[in-house]
């Protein structure tokens, strides 16, 4: 149900770690709960985040929710396509709907994340 090879948080963010770089987005469960997204507030390139801190904001017509940093690091790239097309997150949350890329500075914090099986179990329990 949830793609393998990604790491997940309890707040429903995913991180795909390749070398030092982590690509970050929100899970299918999250986008479905939020409904049609109308706005994404992206993090600034160059800003630093500690795991669990507010990284971005996703806004649907009924709610605005924080996206928490799944990893600790520095933002190297933000998906500017989301500025005009926030619905990409609804359409393809693991692909075109990625939010940002982060240069991971603390790899030990990755241990706090779940793999897809664990996350699937976690979501079932909600």
């Amino acid at each position, binding site marked *: 149900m949830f793609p393998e090879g990604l790491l997940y948080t309890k707040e429903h963010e995913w991180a795909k770690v390749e070398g030092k770089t982590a690509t970050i987005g929100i899970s299918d469960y999250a986008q479905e709960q939020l409904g049609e997204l109308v*706005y994404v*507030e992206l993090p600034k390139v160059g*800003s630093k985040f500690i795991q669990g801190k507010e990284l971005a904001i996703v806004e*649907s017509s*009924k*709610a*605005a929710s*924080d996206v928490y940093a799944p990893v600790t690091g520095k933002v190297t790239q933000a998906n500017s396509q989301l500025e005009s097309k926030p619905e990409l997150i609804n359409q393809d949350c693991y692909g075109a709907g990625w939010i940002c890329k982060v240069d991971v500075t603390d790899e030990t914090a990755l241990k706090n994340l779940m793999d897809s099986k664990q996350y699937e179990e976690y979501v079932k329990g909600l």
Partner: protein
Amino acid sequence: MPFISNTPAQQKQMLAEIGLSMEDLFADIPRELLTGDFNLPDQMTEQKVREHLAALAGKNHIDLTLFLGGGFYDHFIPAAIYSVISRGEFYTAYTPYQPELSQGTLQAVYEYQSAICRLTDMEAANASLYDGGTAMYEAMMMALRITGRNKIIIDDSVNPIYRVMIHSYTRNLSIELDETHCIDGHANREQILKALDEKSAAVILQNPNFFGCIDDFSDIAEAAHKNGALLIVSCYPISLGILKTPGAMDADIVTGEGQSLGMPMSFGGPYLGFMSSRMKYVRKMPGRIVGRTKDRDGKRAFVLTLQAREQHIRRDKATSNICSNEALCALTALVYLLLMGKEGLVETAQLCAGKANYAYERLTAIPGVRPHFKTKWFFNEFVLDLPCEAADVVARLIEKGYAAGFPLNRYYEGMENSLLVCVTEKRTKQQIGMFAEALESAL
């Protein structure tokens, strides 16, 4: 229904049930903060209360001829305003709950927003804020959110009351306030440009400024933008009938006090804060915004929009802690603008400026009275230097039936003899002449 709906007997019963006394409920409050005595007078009959309040009201000078401005202005208020705003359908201080049910109110607010955009030459306005000072504070917070920076540059020609409000709002926030000192009645370019750096979120200026002097901030807007900072301009709406608009100066956020648009001067308000901005910043704008859309039958409909930024959804992360507005005052401003029309607003502003100019010539001809600033670029207020303390002169002239102006030493050091004088379209040539004579004899 009374505010506390249970009776003393019920309260006693409930306390007995949980085994506590009334005092126990307040045990968390330190003893010294509790007071048993509020020092209130004994109760009076309705007739006595009326007499008492009438006696207090009698102490007010309500028939003074006003040459007093300083942020609030004595403009003519057409009677038609009251007829419109006191209609039962409109008569509420708030945007209604279940707002979309009240299409008429939402349409009025939408039109008010459009009018504010037209007036300030900006792209998006909110449904109003409390007053000019809180609107300026909200604009400052908006600039901090947009830029992610924490330094604010504000010139001391901005209304001192607004600056006091900004100081108290920001006292416990980590915001660096850099106050520049105006030169000859104009914003201090040299200090502002020097203060602008990579930490600066915004420059806050006012036009006409507190001394009534007018300016064009286009150069400061350009310098601010080069530094990644914003320009916030507070303005006097009536003056926009003839002055260059903040939008034309390339300001990013415009705020102001809307009292001059049909609201009477009254101590404590209610007043009207207005705010407009660029469309690209609309999601960072605080407060309520009414939008126009189509319902499922394709008919025009008005809704509260961008609510996800607001307190009832975003809780502590909302763009503002002001979740209310001044709906009735906003409606007043709209009706005023509609009654005046494009020509009326221009004419009013021209009359203000023309009469102020006449008064300036007349008053500076009095022996011992000099203009404080060299500049003659003012709208409808100007600063006079008197040969004695301005506050004393003001006190003497109240006895003669004049509110002579604002003694500036209240907020500006070294301006003991300086008086801020205001002239609106309501003052007549005869009143100005008589005031000049009264002032001369009061020196």
